[in-house]
């Protein structure tokens, strides 16, 4: 068994893990495995044909998605939905290095940190939950920033090898929250920009000049402006 390609490729790895698999009777294991394979067949249907590789694990299936983090996230979420009927699935998603290994004449497997971390992440995920690593979030942010806004922090987890993972989970409300925050920031920025414009104008010509020019633009004569100003002062109780 030797690496078939020296350069490590990067892929998004979706690890679909059947919970408590080893403890189940063989008949149930076979049923769950068949169900999982059916789920994989369904959820990979919208991925590019040459864009994914399914790998066997003893308690699940790992899918390495090439050059499509958006598709990988969609696959993870669809797997959970498709598996809702009786398949206790947890999903870990990571973006990292994968390398093809070959036994004999042909490529027969994949190895790499991308797979190992996805498996660790799936170990942390509860049943019917998707957990996502930081590196996958970064890859997703680059490919589709609107989607990475839909991820909320799930915490920092330490695996059996004492390696820490900052994890996220898909959160529908997170995207809406981010949208609201962006709109608020946008409105504030717009107000500031307009305010800066007004300040610049005042600084350039004095406030009486700006007032006269503005009032002139709304069509008030000098007499009308005096009367309007007097009325405003009286209402405000202001005595010059």
């Amino acid at each position, binding site marked *: 068994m030797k690496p078939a390609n020296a350069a490590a490729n990067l892929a998004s790895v979706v690890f679909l893990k059947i919970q408590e698999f080893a403890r189940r009777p063989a008949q149930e294991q076979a049923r769950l495995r068949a169900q999982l394979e059916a789920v994989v067949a369904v959820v*990979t249907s919208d991925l590019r044909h*040459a864009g994914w590789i399914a790998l066997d694990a003893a308690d699940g299936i790992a899918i390495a998605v090439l050059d499509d983090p958006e598709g990988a996230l969609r696959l993870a979420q669809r797997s959970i939905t498709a598996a809702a009927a009786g398949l206790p699935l947890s999903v870990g998603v990571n973006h990292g290095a994968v390398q093809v290994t070959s036994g004999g004449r042909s490529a027969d497997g*994949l190895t790499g940190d991308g797979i190992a971390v996805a498996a660790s992440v799936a170990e942390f995920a509860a049943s019917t939950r998707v957990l996502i690593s930081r*590196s996958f979030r970064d890859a997703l942010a680059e490919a589709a920033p609107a989607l990475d806004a839909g991820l909320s922090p799930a915490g920092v987890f330490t695996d059996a090898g004492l390696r820490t993972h900052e994890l996220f989970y898909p959160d529908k409300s997170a995207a809406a929250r981010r949208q609201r925050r962006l709109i608020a920031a946008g409105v504030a920025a*717009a107000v500031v920009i307009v305010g800066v414009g007004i300040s610049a104008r005042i600084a350039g010509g004095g406030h009486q000049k700006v007032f006269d020019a503005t009032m002139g633009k709304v069509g008030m004569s000098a007499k009308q402006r005096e009367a309007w100003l007097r009325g405003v002062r009286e209402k405000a109780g202001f005595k010059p």
Partner: protein
Amino acid sequence: MTKKKPELTKLGRYKITGELGRGAMGVVYKGEDPSLDRTVALKTVILSDDAAGKDEYKKRFFLEAKAAGRLSHPQVITVYDFGQEGDVAYMAMEFLKGKELRTRMKEGSISVPEAVHIAEQVAEGLGYAHEHGVVHRDIKPSNIMLLPHDKVKIMDFGIARMRASDHKTSTGLVLGTPKYMSPEQVSGSPVDHRSDIFSLGVVLYEMLTHSKLFQGEDTPQIFHAVANFQPPVPSRLNPEVPPMLDFVVERALKKDPSVRYQDAFELAADLRSALSELVDREAAASGEKQRERDTTKTMKMDADALRSALPAPTAAAIGSDTRLPVSLKFDCSDAIERLTDPTGSDRKRLTRAPRPIGIGRRLLRHRVLLAAMLAAVLVGGAIAVV
């Protein structure tokens, strides 16, 4: 079946009529019970010359013979009688007209349903024996007899314990049939009924894959393989094996007895389920099956292919250098080709690490927000200038 004229002519009340075979412990004779006019198999054991050892050995032999004699099950050979004649202890057993599984395996490959049927019957017999406190300790193809009408019987009960306990090497390892021993047997740890389950798992694996599971040039190598080698699932070597059988074999072959099948009846039940599934499948596709049979090809795997068919680890056991095998259920050859032989654009795309995304690029993606900001700049600018 008779090989040559026996040296002995009589053992107890039994008249020896022929020799059936020879083993490490003694000779198996064919005999006649004159009082019942019945043909029997007489298994003999040469007792030790050492007086103290002889008594102990004899005591154990008779104890085991008694235990085996209590067993009465369709899948277990019946022990009629036992006794001693000079330095020879003997056990009179049912004379079976059949074929040893070892011979059947040498003759040609066994079909998956046939293999499962054999293993299921052996598991039933073992379950019964274990229930009665008897552990076989030497389950292997030559101790499984195939009888007419697809019946199976386990032979050699009671002898195995003697072999195991009385034939220790200088390193403390017991003699037996290394290729079918359990990891606890090869390590010299205490052995219980779960050891028989492991051995049956090895036999089933070999029947399903038509290959030897634990191999080595010498006994230490085989022992090492038994203790450490994680075999590929049978379906990787024989695609006709259904997934359920993979799980059954995998569980029977667990190195740690505590996570193995705890009960041979449980194993038998799983094998029955697998068999009914196989029978259903076969019935549903009987027409197709007939056509397939005409074009069946002999599968021959080379050593490299066998090495590559390593088992898939669990999620918890996957490390950076752990290889996960490509699933045979899906066609991923094109994607693998993209990795092994990438085109120019793929080479760049697939190896490039994601870049951190800044506020500018983020804004560029939010077009509404970007438009609002531009409008604000225009309005602010207009107020300032106009």
